C-alpha cells in the first residue's frame, strides 16, 4: 500500500524508524523525520487541502518550502508547511480548508 522506491541504480535511501500517525480518521505509517508530505504521498494521498474561495483540491507544488501550496492542519495547528515539517509518531494531520483555524 505504501509506494517507496526499493531498488535504485544510483541511490540508497536512509529512512528513519517506522512510526504511526493519523491522517483524518485513518491511521497510517511513515518514517520518522521524513516530511509529512512524503509520508502522505507514499500512502497515495495527494490532496492536502482545499482552497479558500472555490474549495478546490490542493497538493504540494515545490516540495522545498517556498510555494505554500501544501499547508495542512497538524496537531490542531493550521498552516503547517507539510513538505518541510518532519513526521513524528502520533501526529494528527488533517486537510486544511481555506485559511485554516486554530483548534
Amino acid at each position: 500500500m505504501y509506494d517507496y522506491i526499493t531498488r535504485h541504480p544510483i541511490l540508497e535511501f536512509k529512512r528513519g524508524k517506522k512510526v504511526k500517525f493519523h491522517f483524518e480518521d485513518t491511521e497510517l505509517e511513515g518514517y520518522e523525520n521524513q516530511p509529512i508530505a512524503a509520508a502522505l504521498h507514499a500512502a497515495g494521498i495527494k490532496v492536502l487541502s482545499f482552497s479558500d474561495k472555490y474549495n478546490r483540491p490542493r497538493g504540494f507544488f515545490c516540495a522545498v518550502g517556498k510555494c505554500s501550496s501544501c499547508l495542512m492542519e497538524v496537531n490542531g495547528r493550521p498552516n503547517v508547511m507539510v513538505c518541510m515539517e518532519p513526521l513524528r509518531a502520533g501526529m494528527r494531520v488533517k486537510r486544511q480548508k481555506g485559511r485554516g483555524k486554530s483548534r
Partner: protein
Amino acid sequence: MTGSRYEMPDKKSEICVIGGGPAGLEAAIAAKELGAQVLIIDDNPILGGQLIKQTHKFFGSKAHYCGVRGVDIGTVLNEKAAALGVEVVNNATVVGYYDNDTLGILRDDTFSAVRAERYIFATGASENMLAFDNADLPGVYGAGAVQTMMNVYGVVPGRRALVVGSGNIGLIVPYQLLQAGVEVAAIVEIMNKVGGYYVHAAKIKRAGVPIYLKHTVTEVQGKESVEAAVISQVGDDYTCLMGTEKTIECDMILIAIGLSPLCDLLHQAGCRIDYIPELGGHVPYHDKNMRTSRSNIFVCGDLACIEEASTAMLEGRIAGARAYESLHGRKSRAAEIARQAQKELDIIRTSPFEERIVYGKKKFFPGQVPEAKS
C-alpha cells in the same frame, strides 16, 4: 520590532552564508579555508541544495568534480565543510533582514537573531509556474519537487509523467524518473528547439520518450488529481493551433520551464535589484567580486543568475574569498582562490550555452552593453 531589540543577537559570526547548496557550501569552504569564522544557515535537514537530488555525473572542469555524480558532490562538500569546522544551522529559515544588519531566524518554532560582519546570500531559486486549465490540481508539480520526493525521500512520485519544458532540468528529471522505474509519456517544449544539452536529450530520446517541439500543455484533466493532460501544437506566434490537441494519459505534470532567483531578503536589505531576463528576472546587482550594492553583502549561485551547479560552485568560491578579503584586507591567498575560480568560470562561459549569461551580467554595467542582442 525596533533596532535596539537586536543589539545583542543570539549568535554572532564573522561570515554568515544563507543557503547551503553548491554555491553556499563552496563560499563557506573558501572563507573557512582562509581562516574566517563561518556560519551556514539552511532550511533543509541536509545541506547540498539541488546536488543531493542529482543522479547524473556532472560536466565541468577537472578541478570541480567533473565526472562525479551530483549526489556524491553534495556528500564531498558536506564532509569538507564539516572537516574544516564550518558551523551549520540546519532546518532554519531566515525570515528577515533587520536593522543593524541582523538576520531573523525561525527554527523549531523559535525565533532568534544572528549578526555577521559579512553576509553571503546563496538562497538559490524557485520554480516558475505556468498557467493552464486546472493548473492547481494536485499532481501538477515543479520538476524539482518530484526530484525531492523521488531522489531524497525515495517516494515513487507517480505512474506516468508529462514533462513541460526541455531545458536541462526538463531533460534530466525524466531520465531520473526512468531510473526510478516511472514511465515518462512525453516532454513538450514550446520553442522549436530543445533548450538543454544534446547529450541529455539523446539519453531520453533513445529510451523512447518523445519530445514534442512547438507544443505546450493547455489543460489538465482529473477529479481530485491529475488523470490526463491535453497538449497542443503552437503556431509561430505561440498561440495554440486548433485541431492539434492530443490527450495524454498521465498522473503527474512536471513543470520545468525555468527558475526565478530568490532575492526577497536582499530587497529587504536594500540591495539594488535589477530586472535582467537573461539572468532569470529580478537579480541582485553584483560586481566581479560577487559583491552587491551593499558592501557587507555578497551573492552567488542561482540567486545571482540562473545557471549551472558547476558555475554556482565557482561563483561561491569567489564570493567566499572576496568576503574574507573585504574583512581582513588584501591577502594573496584569497586573491589567488578568487582568481583561479574566475579563470575557470571564464573558460566555461565561452560555451555557446553561456552567451545569455555573459550578456546579462554585462547589463549591470550600463555603457558596456551593446545596443541590441543579435
